């Protein structure tokens, strides 16, 4: 349920769907996002869906908080129609040279690496949102026993393709960036392509992701 609408500064609406992070709440956020995107409401110039919030940015030259709030309060959201989603397989190599934080994860989770990999590759993940850096997917949920905090000191450079874990989520660094997630492996697949303007992201909110373990030879052979 959309619990509250407030303003974030003078050019955005902050739509709050509560504090819970789960598929149901997030699916409703995505429904609002998709409906608004299709409607192309005059003055709205950006939508940022996240786990349980939706931020609606608008052009203060063309509209204001009151106008947009009224539109959002009176909008009908189709709750029944199935959300279109894809199932995507992402190859990940967990060779020692790419699984940068495996030793740290073994200690933090008190599990050996085989158990960590088995658990990681056995699950199906749900894409809650994309962003922070272009195309980065936030995937969940990891099992309780797989949940680790961020690195105490974030890396200045996380290599492109790195697959990271933090708390209940996994992500993929679409390009080299600073970051503090625990790196379990690396994917040779291109997750973000700015040359494909219509569909730059391989993974989008609502999609299902499965990771497939590949060895270092397969990783090196991967031609993207």
């Amino acid at each position, binding site marked *: 349920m959309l619990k509250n609408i407030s303003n974030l500064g003078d050019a955005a609406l902050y739509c709050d769907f509560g504090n819970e992070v789960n598929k149901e709440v997030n699916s409703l956020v995505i429904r609002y996002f998709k409906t608004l995107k299709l409607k192309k409401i005059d003055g709205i*110039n950006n939508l940022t869906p996240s786990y349980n919030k939706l931020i609606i940015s608008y052009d203060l030259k063309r509209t204001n908080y009151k106008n947009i709030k009224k539109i959002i309060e009176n909008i009908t959201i189709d709750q029944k129609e199935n959300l279109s989603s894809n199932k995507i397989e992402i190859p990940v190599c967990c060779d020692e040279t790419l699984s940068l934080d495996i030793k740290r994860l073994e200690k933090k989770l008190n599990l050996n690496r085989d158990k960590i990999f088995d658990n990681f590759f056995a699950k199906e993940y749900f894409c809650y949102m994309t962003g922070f850096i272009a195309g980065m997917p936030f995937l969940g949920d990891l099992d309780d026993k797989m949940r680790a905090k961020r690195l105490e000191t974030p890396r200045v450079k996380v290599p492109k393709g790195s697959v990271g874990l933090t708390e209940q989520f996994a992500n993929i660094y679409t390009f080299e960036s600073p970051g503090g997630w625990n790196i379990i492996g690396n994917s040779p697949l291109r997750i973000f392509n700015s040359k494909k303007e219509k569909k730059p992201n391989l993974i989008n909110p609502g999609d299902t992701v499965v990771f497939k373990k590949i060895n270092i030879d397969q990783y090196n052979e991967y031609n993207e």
Partner: protein
Amino acid sequence: MSKNYFKIIRAGINTTFQDLGRENLYHIGIPFSGAMDNRNYLLSNKLVKNDLNSPVIEFAYQGPLLKYHGDKINIAITGNVKFRLKKNHKVFEGNCYETYLLEDEDEIDLLSTNKSVYGYLAIGAEIDLEFQWKSCSINTKAKIGSNDGKKIVNGQEIQIKKISKDFSKKKLNYLNSKIEKIRVIKGTNYDYFSDKGKKIFFEKEFIVSKLSDRMGMRLEGPKIENIVDTNIKSEGILKGVIQIPADGNPIIMLSDHGTIGGYPKIAVVISADYDKLVQLMPGSKIKFQEVELSSAETLFKLYDLETQNLISQI
């Protein structure tokens, strides 16, 4: 047909092509980008009779040194920029908000953005650039925009596609005013901070740190105490949002910011003050002042009206 181009002899510190930026891409992780100081960007284009959303060269601190080759062409520089022109072996200082007609072999040396950060060089022509999502704006972090998403470098050439034929001399009397206080609206996590923290935020001075760029501005000063949680569940952020991470030092999101953030938002800079905010150099002092949403909307109308007035004076 002759070839018209600028040769970059010295690229400067952070020289990029910018326009109004891109919309409707936050959901895939791409921010607006675009010129940092919107008013000075628009004025530079108007002076050389370009469409107001045309690509310009944005530079920070020390700008580029360019040598022109080709048929005569009009240029204008805006901001608070100290620059020299070299025409027929004669060197003289130029004025901002004034057009200059360049001829073959002339040079522009953009020495410094005096006591400010960003300056703009508009060229009365169509520049040969690539666009992504309808914008040339370079976002070096995501490697998006013209020039393969990279800063302009020494030795490169900027090719001119088509020179505007109106070379009329234009001049505007305008002085960039300094800002005393940055006005803000309380953020969605305002209550995460202690009474003492809130008081510090609105009463004490902060210093702009050297770790500031097109993505964000870091501030130093008294620490702002969080009494709830130093993290929130990651959610969307916008330019102007002031986040307070665990160390208690504010970070203000600027035009190339990450689209999602996980630190509490204490406040948001009002739209009317954004152009002035981005021009504050490292070492500058900042004080925040709270305003209500309705005042922020009125202040933006005034800001926009003033910008439109300046444009119509050219």
